């Protein structure tokens, strides 16, 4: 019973921690992200399992986390507000070719990140980009100048 409560607390605490970490430009998983995933995952599992390392406890915790994840996904699909809270909102980084510094600074996006995103979209330079949008998953969508 206690393990289930620990699993619920662990899930929402992890969700909050991951959410308040900035979206990383590029969205791919780097070596640095692996350190975060393994270390946080390993630490939280110790607290969640407590002293009970039985298969019964592990099964109950896995089911609890699965149920929570499904519930949050369902709430996201029903309410855009929940989606914005859990995943954030898309943000315009380049507006008609001009950088929006407030958004870029808060999201820790550099000009170099924009240049990389432009090249990935087969656009040679950011001068030729009309709009750049930071998506909820951390990727940057590029809209070339027409």
């Amino acid at each position, binding site marked *: 019973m*206690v393990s289930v409560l*620990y699993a619920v607390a662990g899930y929402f605490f992890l969700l*909050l921690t991951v959410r*308040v970490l900035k979206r990383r430009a590029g969205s791919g998983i780097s070596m640095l992200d692996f350190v975060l995933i393994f270390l946080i995952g390993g630490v939280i599992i110790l607290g969640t399992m*407590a*002293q009970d390392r039985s298969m019964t406890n592990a099964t109950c915790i896995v089911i609890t986390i699965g149920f929570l994840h499904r519930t949050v996904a369902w709430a996201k699909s029903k309410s855009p507000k929940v989606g*914005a809270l859990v995943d*954030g*909102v*898309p*943000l*315009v980084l380049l*507006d*008609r070719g001009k950088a929006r510094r407030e*958004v870029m600074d*808060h999201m820790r996006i550099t000009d170099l990140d924009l240049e990389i995103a432009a090249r990935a979209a087969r656009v040679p330079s950011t001068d030729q980009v009309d*709009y750049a*949008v930071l998506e909820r998953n951390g990727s940057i969508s590029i*809209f070339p100048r027409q």
Partner: protein
Amino acid sequence: MSASPITKRVQDDVPRYNDEVAVGEDLEFQRRWWKFENAVWILFGIIIVCDVLGVFGRGWLARAKATTRDHAVVLSYERMERAFTPAILDLEIGQNAIRNGQVTVYVSGSVVKELGAARISPQPMTSTIGSSGYTYVFPVTSSPGTIQIALSPPSAGLRHFRVQVAGSEPIDASVLVFP
């Protein structure tokens, strides 16, 4: 006969930015989120500082001492402990507590049940189970001597306990156990 499929024209359901790109940006929400993020990181910072200082146990602020007026016994313990985490309760026995080469120590039942006393060192000569606690008798050759009780609290909550050496006043103390 199969029913005809229901079709619906696909259209943007998010507001357009500059009437050009359907982004669905909500900058006001994002500004509020940035403030919330800052508050969370300040809170996380405070939690780390508190942990280093021992507010959640196992640190400087957690350590506590209590003694009787006649200095028969000095109790050292942690005000804050953590569930399933080992902790030590020290009893330093003074000269006033020794009678006929023995010291008799009473501990309340909560030390065993709620604070999870797992081991007592040195081993007592006798252990007696009472209605509200346990009485241990130890042989003593010289003072000061130390009796250690290893704890591992099985659950979270505020726990009260009592320790008393025969012939001296009792020491009442409380321990907050974090989950």
